[in-house]
């Protein structure tokens, strides 16, 4: 672990493990490091171990083994110091429906020990910042999902933490609310130097927001790097073609099959991951032309994080999600 990260108030994790009774290891020896001011996207399907990791890093769940330092403090030995350094918005927006937004802010700032005058100004400032000033005196029970998430974020920031944990902060939000939250998180990191540890199952969220991404699957960190690095590592774009005639679809699949492995496509189209990269596109067009297959639509997709996930785990993130859900229902997957 680097002393630089310790000094700067980042996150360092080494061989972190969490086992639950009668279950597999929810987190199985992960190592990661997050620098101050960095947005780290922790990407994986449901049940992969994301939330368990966050609970351990926020001191709410003791690790079975391994070490983790958050803000320079050990999560096991220095729990109170860790908690003083961090803000967290956990998976469900944990709010009291009978209290107003302002009452939530008052409670949170008071419990964090802010003085009376500061409580009021800090509460108002944060409610304003997350766009909830107009609803500050309404009971939270009447808030929409997006409003609850924004209040959750404001509460996590009440005591000016250096490190912010956001556990699937945009799950279930509409695109407008999601975008607004992304902007605020990006601003926090860029302007206030807040370190953000963000779990998500949305590829576009990790792609748009995170400086670096860690991909977790079955409790293991299977890949880590900037989104660009990870995609470059895969390096293979996908070409998707739709034949003008439905009858040509099988023939088209055979031709495209010469250029790489089949990938997910629209129902009428055929897609393959180009083994030789973008330069093969011209060959693909020529091959289809020589076979007399008329093309209605042809598109080249740059590699995505889903491609990275597929390459690292052998399945797509969307498919993995369904698989994990089924596993969870049958008790095959530990809570995470």
């Amino acid at each position: 672990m680097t002393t630089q990260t310790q000094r700067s108030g980042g996150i360092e994790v080494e061989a972190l493990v969490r086992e639950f009774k009668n279950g597999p290891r929810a987190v199985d020896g992960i190592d990661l490091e997050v620098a101050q001011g960095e947005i780290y996207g922790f990407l994986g399907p449901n049940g992969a171990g994301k939330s368990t990791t966050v609970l351990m890093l926020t001191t709410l769940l003791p690790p079975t083994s391994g070490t983790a330092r958050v803000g320079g403090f050990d999560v096991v030995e220095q729990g109170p110091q860790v908690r003083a350094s961090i803000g967290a918005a956990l998976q469900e927006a944990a709010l009291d429906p009978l209290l107003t937004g302002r009452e939530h802010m008052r409670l949170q700032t008071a419990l964090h020990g802010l003085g009376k005058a500061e409580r009021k100004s800090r509460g108002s400032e944060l409610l304003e910042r997350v766009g909830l000033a107009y609803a500050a005196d309404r009971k939270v029970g009447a808030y929409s999902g997006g409003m609850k998430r924004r209040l959750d974020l404001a509460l996590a920031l009440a005591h000016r933490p250096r490190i912010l944990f956001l556990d699937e902060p945009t799950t279930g939000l509409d695109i407008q609310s999601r975008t607004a939250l992304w902007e605020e998180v990006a601003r926090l990191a860029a302007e206030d130097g807040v370190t953000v540890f963000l779990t998500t199952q949305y590829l576009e969220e990790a792609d748009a927001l995170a400086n670096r991404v860690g991909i977790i699957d079955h409790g293991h960190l299977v890949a880590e790097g900037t989104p660009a690095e990870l995609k470059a590592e895969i390096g293979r774009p996908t070409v998707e073609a739709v034949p003008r005639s439905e009858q040509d679809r099988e023939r088209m699949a055979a031709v495209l099959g010469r250029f790489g492995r089949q990938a997910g496509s629209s129902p009428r189209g055929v897609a393959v991951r180009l083994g030789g990269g973008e330069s093969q596109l011209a060959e693909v067009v020529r091959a289809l032309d020589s076979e007399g297959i008329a093309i209605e639509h042809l598109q080249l997709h740059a590699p995505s994080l889903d491609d990275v996930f597929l390459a690292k785990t052998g399945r797509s993130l969307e498919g993995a999600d369904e698989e994990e859900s089924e596993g969870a229902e049958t008790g095959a997957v530990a809570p995470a």
Partner: protein
Amino acid sequence: MSDGLRGQIGQLARRSMLRTLRQPAQIVPALVFPLFLLAVNSGGLEDATNLPGFPTDSYLTFVLAVPFIQGALFSVMNSGTDLARDIETGFLNRLALTPLRGAALLSGLLAGSFLLGVVQAVAYLSVGLIAGADLAAGPAGALVILALSVSITVAFGTIGLFAALRFGSGEAVQGLFPVFFVFLFLSAMTLPLDLLTTDWFHAIASVNPVTYLLQAFRSLLIEGWNLGDLALGFGIAAAIGTLGMLAASSALKTRLVRT
């Protein structure tokens, strides 16, 4: 007590009281149900006062002690379900991420029970006196009844907190309600202990603490000032409260496994 702890208790007490006041469904049944039973019992069992050795000729005065205990039983449900909801929604985790101390959490949560206890005691006593019940201990006795009622309500509230922390579900807490009602029915609720002639019933009622809580109220309503009965009543409330608080503190440590 440090300023920090006092401040934390104050904030959580404020929240607990706001929650209680904003949930009429918590207050109304706790007021109406015991008063309804008071009306039924005092109307239907008035002839019991003719039994030799019955301590008063007003059954209403005798049975007026019961609503205070019934009301306190609602406190088990209210404090427990409130905390269970905090566990279920993750609000307890939010609190756990602050420098909040366990003692502040439990004490603050009991503020709602305290408030409910005051409202209940004033309502039961007022309705009883208006309906014609006696208060042998006079106005000062009314204040002691208020204090005793609040003590019992808060003490029972600690059991609700323990159940919530132990089981983590509102349903489990509500499941305790019938169990506690059995304690009430197996006490000297409808007749004085001496007049319970069925052996097994007398034996159970004589070891049931609820009997002595009722007796503490009755001493003020019927006799005047009986310091022995009052000391026993307050002592039992303090014992239940202490045991409940210890059990809740222990369950909180298990529930909040923060490092």
